[in-house]
C-alpha cells in the first residue's frame, strides 16, 4: 500500500517536473515574444457603382457595380533583438466578381470568388548599424519622399499603384537597401539602392487610351493617335483608315507591348537625400538616378490589308511598344510654418528632371503612302524639364481645414508630346460631433484643358476603429479630343482612359 503511495507521489513529482520543464520556458518565451511582437491591421469593404454610361469602351455601358472588393491587411512588427526590427505586411484581397465563365470553371472557388495575396512590406531594420548614428533597412518596402500632400515630384523610387483611381497614394513595393545617417540633430542623410525596376500599375481604364473605339454596330469611331509632331504625318495616317469603310475594318491584331529594362547592375536605381532642419523650416535636397515608371510610346507598326478570311473587309494590324525611359532628378522640397503670417503652412517641391530622349518610330508597310519607309519623331526631348508642387494650408476653426496646391506635372506626365500640364488642387475638410463625422471635398482642375475631378466624401466613425465612408469620384471634361489628330488634344480627366465616375461605400475596421 505504502509502496503504491510512494509510486503515486513520485509519479506526480515527475509529472510536475516535466510540466515545469515544458511549460515554464514556453511561458517565458511567450511572455518575451508578447513584448516583441506587435500585431495590427484592418479589414475593409469597398463597393462602387458607375454613375454614368458614357465613359466606358462602348457608349451605353454603365450604371452597374464596378467594384465589390474586400481586403484583409495583417501587419506584424517584430523586434527579435535589441536594435532590430522586422516588418511584415500582407494583404488578402477578394475582388468580389465571378470570373467563372463556363460550366468547367464553375467548381473552381478561385474563379467564382477570385482573390490575390500581396506582400506590401517585408523588411528588416538594424539600428546603429556599423555606427551608432546609422540605420540600415533591407527588404521589400515603399519609400515616401517629399513634403507635399500626395503630389510629390521628388518621390520617384517606387512605382505607383493606380489600379484604384481613388487612392493616389498607393505604391508598388520593391526590394531595396536603405541607409540612413543622423550626423546631427538638424541633419539626416538617406541613400537608397533599388536593384530591379518595377513599372507602375495602371487603372483598368488606361487601356482605353490605346483602344480602338467602335460604336454599337462595331464600326470604327476613333483610332488611337500616335505621338506625331508633324500634322501632315497625322493626317496621312488618318487617311489610311478613313479611306476604308469604318464598318469593314477588323481589329483582331492590335497590341501594345511593354518593353522593360534589363536586370543588369547598370539598370538599377539609386537615390540620395539630405534633410535639413533650420528653425521653422524643414528642407530636403535629393538626387535620383531612376526611371519614369509610366509607359512612354516609342514604336508602332500599322497596316491595313484585305482580309483573307472575311472577304470584303480589311484586317488592321496595329502593334505599339511602350518603354520606361531613364531619368535623373534633382529635387528640393520644403515645409514651413509662417509665424509672421497667421501660422499659415507652406509646402513646396520642385524636381528638375533630366530625361532620356525617346524617339517615336512609326512603320507602315508598302501601301502606306508616305509611311512606306517609316518615320521617326522625338516624343520626349532630352531637354530638362520641371515638375513642381506649391501649396498652403490653414486651420480656420476647430472644425474647418483647407489646403490649396498648384501642381505642375501630373504623376504620368513626362514632357512627351502630351506635355506638362498645370493643375489646381483644392481640399476642404470639416469635422463634426467629436470628430465622428468628417466631410471632405477635394477637387482637381487641369488649368490647361479645364477638365476636372470632384471627390466628395463623408466619413462616419461609427465607434472607435470602425469607419463608414460614403462618397463619389466624378470626372468632368470631354471624352473626345478637341482635335482627333493631335496627340496632346485629349483632356486629362475628360478622356475615357482616366476612368469611370463612381459612387462608393467603404467600410473599414482597424485593430
Amino acid at each position, binding site marked *: 500500500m505504502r509502496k503504491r503511495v510512494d509510486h503515486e507521489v513520485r509519479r506526480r513529482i515527475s509529472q510536475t517536473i516535466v510540466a515545469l520543464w515544458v511549460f515554464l520556458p514556453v511561458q517565458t518565451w511567450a511572455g518575451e515574444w508578447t513584448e516583441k511582437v506587435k500585431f*495590427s491591421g484592418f479589414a475593409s469593404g469597398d463597393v462602387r457603382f458607375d454613375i454614368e454610361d458614357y465613359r466606358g469602351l462602348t457608349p451605353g455601358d454603365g450604371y452597374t457595380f464596378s467594384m465589390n472588393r474586400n481586403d484583409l491587411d495583417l501587419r506584424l*512588427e517584430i*523586434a527579435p533583438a535589441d536594435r532590430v*526590427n522586422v*516588418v511584415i505586411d500582407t494583404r488578402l484581397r477578394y475582388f468580389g466578381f465571378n470570373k467563372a465563365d463556363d460550366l468547367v470553371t464553375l467548381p473552381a472557388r478561385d474563379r467564382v470568388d477570385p482573390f490575390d495575396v500581396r506582400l506590401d512590406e517585408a523588411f528588416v*531594420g538594424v*539600428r546603429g548599424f556599423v555606427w551608432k548614428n546609422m*540605420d540600415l533597412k533591407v527588404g521589400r518596402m*515603399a519609400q*515616401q519622399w517629399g*513634403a507635399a500632400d500626395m503630389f510629390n515630384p521628388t518621390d520617384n523610387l517606387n512605382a505607383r499603384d493606380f489600379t484604384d483611381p481613388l487612392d493616389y*497614394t498607393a505604391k508598388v513595393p520593391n526590394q531595396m537597401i536603405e541607409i*540612413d545617417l*543622423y550626423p546631427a*540633430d538638424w541633419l*539626416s542623410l538617406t541613400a537608397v539602392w533599388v536593384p530591379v525596376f518595377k513599372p507602375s500599375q495602371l487603372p483598368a481604364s488606361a487601356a482605353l487610351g490605346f483602344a480602338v473605339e467602335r460604336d454599337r454596330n462595331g464600326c470604327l469611331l476613333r483610332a488611337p493617335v500616335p505621338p506625331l509632331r508633324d500634322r501632315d504625318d497625322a493626317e496621312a495616317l488618318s487617311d489610311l483608315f478613313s479611306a476604308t469603310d469604318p464598318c469593314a475594318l477588323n481589329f483582331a491584331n492590335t497590341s501594345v507591348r511593354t518593353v522593360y529594362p534589363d536586370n543588369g547592375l547598370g539598370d538599377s536605381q539609386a537615390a540620395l537625400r539630405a534633410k535639413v*532642419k533650420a528653425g*521653422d523650416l*524643414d528642407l530636403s535636397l535629393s538626387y535620383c538616378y531612376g526611371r519614369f515608371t509610366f509607359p512612354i510610346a516609342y514604336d508602332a507598326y500599322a497596316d491595313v490589308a484585305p482580309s483573307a478570311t472575311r472577304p470584303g473587309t480589311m484586317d488592321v494590324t496595329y502593334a505599339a511598344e511602350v518603354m520606361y525611359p531613364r531619368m535623373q532628378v534633382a529635387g528640393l522640397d520644403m*515645409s514651413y*510654418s509662417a*509665424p509672421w503670417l*497667421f*501660422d*499659415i*503652412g507652406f509646402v513646396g517641391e520642385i524636381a528638375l528632371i533630366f530625361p532620356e530622349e525617346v524617339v517615336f518610330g512609326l512603320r507602315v508597310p508598302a501601301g502606306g503612302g508616305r509611311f512606306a519607309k517609316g518615320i521617326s519623331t522625338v516624343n520626349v526631348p532630352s531637354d530638362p524639364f520641371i515638375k513642381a508642387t506649391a501649396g498652403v*494650408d*490653414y*486651420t480656420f476653426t*476647430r472644425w474647418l*481645414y483647407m489646403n490649396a496646391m498648384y501642381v505642375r506635372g501630373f504623376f504620368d506626365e513626362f514632357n512627351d508630346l502630351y506635355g506638362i500640364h498645370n493643375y489646381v488642387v483644392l481640399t476642404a*475638410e470639416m*469635422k463634426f*460631433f*467629436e*470628430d*465622428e463625422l*468628417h466631410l*471632405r471635398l477635394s477637387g482637381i482642375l487641369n488649368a490647361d484643358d479645364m477638365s476636372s475631378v470632384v471627390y466628395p466624401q463623408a466619413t462616419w*466613425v461609427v*465607434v*472607435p*476603429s*470602425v*469607419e463608414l465612408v460614403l462618397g463619389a469620384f466624378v470626372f468632368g471634361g470631354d471624352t473626345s479630343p478637341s482635335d482627333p489628330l493631335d496627340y496632346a488634344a485629349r483632356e486629362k480627366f475628360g478622356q475615357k482612359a482616366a476612368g469611370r465616375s463612381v459612387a462608393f461605400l467603404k467600410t*473599414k475596421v*482597424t*485593430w
Partner: protein
Amino acid sequence: MRRFWAGFGIGFLFCTLTLLPPAAAEGPGPQEILERMEKTINGFDDQEMDLRLTIVDVDGSKKSYEFTIWQKGDQKRLIKFTSGEIKGMATLVQDRNNVYVYLPGFKKVRRVAAHNMNQSFAGSDFSNDDMATVSWTKIYTASPGKEEADAWWITATPKPGEQVEYSKVDLKLDKKTGTQQRAVYFNKAGEKVKTFDNTNLTDWNGVPRAKNVVVADPRTGHRTEMEVKSFKVNQGLKDDMFTVRELQWGK
C-alpha cells in the same frame, strides 16, 4: 485627415494629473506654488504613462481611445495611439515649436504647422496645443487668487510673446498635499471654456498622481474623462527616443 493632428501634445495631461509637495507652513507666493507644481509635473528624468481617453457627448454616448506617453525632462514627449481608427499614429513634441506626427495611413512623418494646434485632440475637450504644452513655468506666470481653508487659488497668465490659446488659467491647489484639484481655463474673450477636475489620487510606486481627470466644456456640457492605467518614472529613457529618427524607425 486632419484628425491626425489631434495626436500631438499631451501637455495638459501631465499638468493636470500632478501633485504638489506639502506646502510650506507660511503661505508660499503664487510663483513658488506654480514652480512647485511644475516640479511635481516634470521633476523626473523621464515618465511613461498608459492612458484611456473617454469622450462623453452631451447625450451620454461614449467612445474611448488608448495611448501611451513617454516624456523626457520638461520639453520632449512622444505619444503613440494604441487603439481605434488612429492606432499607430504617433506624435513627437521636441518643443512647442517643433512637433512632428507619423501618419500610418501615409507612412510618412510630417511637421505639424502651428495653425493645427487649436484643433481638438482626437475629438476630445483637449486641444492639440494643450497636449503639446509640457511645462507650465516656461509659458505662464502666476498671480495670487483667493485662499480657501484648505486650498490656494492662483491665476496663471501667459508670458509675453507666448502663443497660447488661453488668456488665463485659474488653478486650485490643495494646501495639504499640493494636489491640483481644479483648473479653469478662459479664452482670449474672457469666456470660461474649459474645466479640469482631478480625482482619485493614487500612489504609483511612491509617486503620487491623480488617476482620473475630467475635462469639461461649460458652454456645451461636453466632457472628456482621462484615466491613467499605469505610470512610471525614471526608467532611463534615452534622448534618442525623442527624435524624428525614432518616429520613423521600423515604419
